[in-house]
C-alpha cells in the first residue's frame, strides 16, 4: 500500500481521516461539545479577569498563572501530576515504537512514526508546563530514571502483536482523551493550555487505532482473532487508567481527589470518567464486532449506562508498584536512550559555546 494521495494539507482530518465512519460524527471526547466548552470556558474566564489572590482566582474559576502566588501544596501537586503525565507521554512512545520496524505497510509505518513523534511532542508540552512551576526538566528526568516519579502503569503491558497498536490507539488513547478533556479546564493556565494542544492531536491517534482494528476484523479469521485477543488484553488495563475507585476498599489511601477537585485541577471523579468511557466504547466495540471481555457488561435501562464487572485492583497496584511485565524494561530503555544521547547533547553545547565565544569576540572588537 502506498501513502494515500489527495491529502488536504490544510486539514489534518482530511490527511489522516478514513472512510470507515461518518466524519461528522464525534469519535471521541476531543470532538465533542464538552471539549469546545472547556476551551470556551478558558476564554470566558480570561475575559472576566478581575479577581486577584489565589483563593479568589479559584473561587471565580479563573486561571492561575506561573508568577501568581499559590499555596506550596498546590504547586507540589501540580508538579507531581504534570511530571507524571509528561513521563507517561515519553514512556508511552515505547510500546508502539516497538512496532515501527515491523509495521505491515509503508502507510502504517508513516502513521506510526508520526504518532510516536506526537507522544514525544506531548511530553515536551507538559515538561514545558511543569517548568513554569519552578522545576527544571533535567530534575524531572532524573526523578523518572530513579523511579522517584511514576508514569501511567498502562505502559508496563507488552505489545505482543500488530493488533495491539490498534487496541492502544482505540482504547488507551481513548481513555487518555476522556481523562484529558476536563484538564483543558484545569485551574493552572499552562497545564490547561498544554492539554488543549494534546487533546486536538489525540483525536488522530484514536481514529488510527480504530482503523487498524476495523481492517483486521474484516480480514482473515486469524486477523480477526488477533484483534479480539488485543481487545481482551487491553480492555481491563484501559479501565484502570482512570485510577482507583473513589470509594470502597480499593480506593487510594490518602488520595488527592478531593483536594484536587477543590483546587480546580480535577473536574470529575475517577469513577465518573470511567463510566463515561465505558458508555462511549461499548457501541464502538459492537461496531467493530469485538466482544469486550466482561461477562457482566450490560445496558442498565434505569440508569441509562452500561454496567460492568469488578476491576482487578490487585493487578493495578501490583503493576503500579513495579511488578508489571515491562516495568524494568521501560525504564532501562529510557535510561539507555538518555545516556546514549549524552554525546549529542554535549557536542551541541560545545558548538553553541564556540559560536557564542566567537560572537562575543566580534562584538568587543567592533
Amino acid at each position, binding site marked *: 500500500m502506498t501513502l494515500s494521495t489527495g491529502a488536504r*494539507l*490544510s486539514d*489534518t482530518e482530511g490527511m489522516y481521516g478514513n472512510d470507515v465512519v461518518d466524519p461528522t460524527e464525534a469519535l471521541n471526547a476531543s470532538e465533542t461539545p464538552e471539549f469546545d466548552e472547556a476551551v470556551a470556558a478558558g476564554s470566558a474566564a480570561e475575559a472576566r479577569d478581575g479577581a*486577584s489572590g489565589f483563593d479568589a482566582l479559584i473561587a471565580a474559576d479563573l486561571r492561575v*498563572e*506561573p*508568577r*501568581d*502566588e499559590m499555596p506550596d501544596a498546590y504547586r507540589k501537586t501540580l508538579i507531581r501530576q504534570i511530571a507524571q503525565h509528561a513521563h507517561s507521554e515519553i514512556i508511552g512512545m515505547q510500546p508502539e515504537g516497538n512496532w515501527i520496524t515491523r509495521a505491515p505497510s509503508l502507510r502504517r509505518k508513516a502513521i506510526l512514526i*508520526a504518532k510516536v*513523534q*506526537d507522544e514525544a*511532542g506531548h511530553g*515536551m*508540552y507538559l515538561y*514545558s*508546563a511543569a*517548568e*513554569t512551576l*519552578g522545576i*527544571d*526538566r*533535567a*530534575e524531572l*528526568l*532524573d526523578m523518572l530514571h*530513579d523511579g522517584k516519579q511514576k508514569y501511567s502503569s498502562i505502559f508496563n503491558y507488552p505489545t505482543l502483536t500488530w493488533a495491539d497498536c490498534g487496541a492502544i490507539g482505540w482504547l488507551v488513547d481513548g481513555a487518555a482523551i476522556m481523562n484529558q478533556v476536563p484538564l483543558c479546564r484545569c485551574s493552572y*493556565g*499552562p497545564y490547561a*493550555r*498544554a492539554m488543549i494542544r494534546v487533546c486536538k*492531536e489525540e483525536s488522530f491517534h484514536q481514529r488510527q487505532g480504530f482503523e487498524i482494528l476495523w481492517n483486521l476484523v474484516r480480514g482473515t479469521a486469524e486477523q480477526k482473532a488477533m484483534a479480539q485477543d488485543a481487545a481482551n488484553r487491553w480492555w481491563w488495563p484501559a479501565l484502570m487508567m482512570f485510577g482507583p475507585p473513589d470509594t470502597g476498599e480499593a480506593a487510594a489511601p490518602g488520595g488527592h481527589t478531593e483536594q484536587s477537585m477543590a483546587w480546580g485541577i480535577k473536574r470529575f471523579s475517577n469513577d465518573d470518567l470511567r463510566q463515561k468511557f465505558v458508555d462511549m466504547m461499548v457501541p464502538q466495540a459492537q461496531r467493530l464486532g469485538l466482544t469486550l471481555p466482561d461477562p457482566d457488561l450490560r445496558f442498565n435501562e434505569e440508569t441509562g449506562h452500561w454496567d460492568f464487572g469488578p476491576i482487578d485492583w490487585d493487578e493495578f497496584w501490583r503493576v503500579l508498584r513495579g511488578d508489571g511485565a515491562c516495568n524494568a524494561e521501560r525504564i532501562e530503555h529510557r535510561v539507555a536512550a538518555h*545516556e546514549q544521547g*549524552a554525546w549529542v*547533547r*554535549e557536542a*551541541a*553545547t560545545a*558548538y*553553541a559555546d564556540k*559560536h*557564542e565565544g566567537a560572537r562575543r569576540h566580534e562584538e568587543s572588537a567592533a
Partner: protein
Amino acid sequence: MSEPRQPESASVATRSGERSWPLWEVFVRGKRGLSHVHVGSLHAPDAEMALRNGRDVYTRRQEGVSLWVVRASDITASSPDERDSFFDPAADKVYRHPTFYDVPEDVEYL
C-alpha cells in the same frame, strides 16, 4: 508575557553533572495577518537549534508560518505583586473611552 519565569539561575546540573541547555520561549504566528503568540518553551543549546526544535515541537500540523524564539532569561516581566499599582493609572482616565462623551443620540456614525 503570559509565562515568564524567574530569571534562570545559570543552568541546572543534572545528576551526571551534565550542563542542561538554556530555556527558550517560543512564539508562533499562526497565519499571515496575526501576531506572534506565546505557545510554550523548550530547551536548546543555541538560537538556531531552538528554532528547529520549536518547529518540531509546536508546528507539526502547520500551526505556524513564522517562529520566534527568545531566551527565557532575556525576558523582563512586570510583577504580579505590583499589578494593581502598575496598571491602576489607567483606571481613572475614563475619558480615554468613547462612552465618556455626551453627544446627541440623533447624530449618525459617531
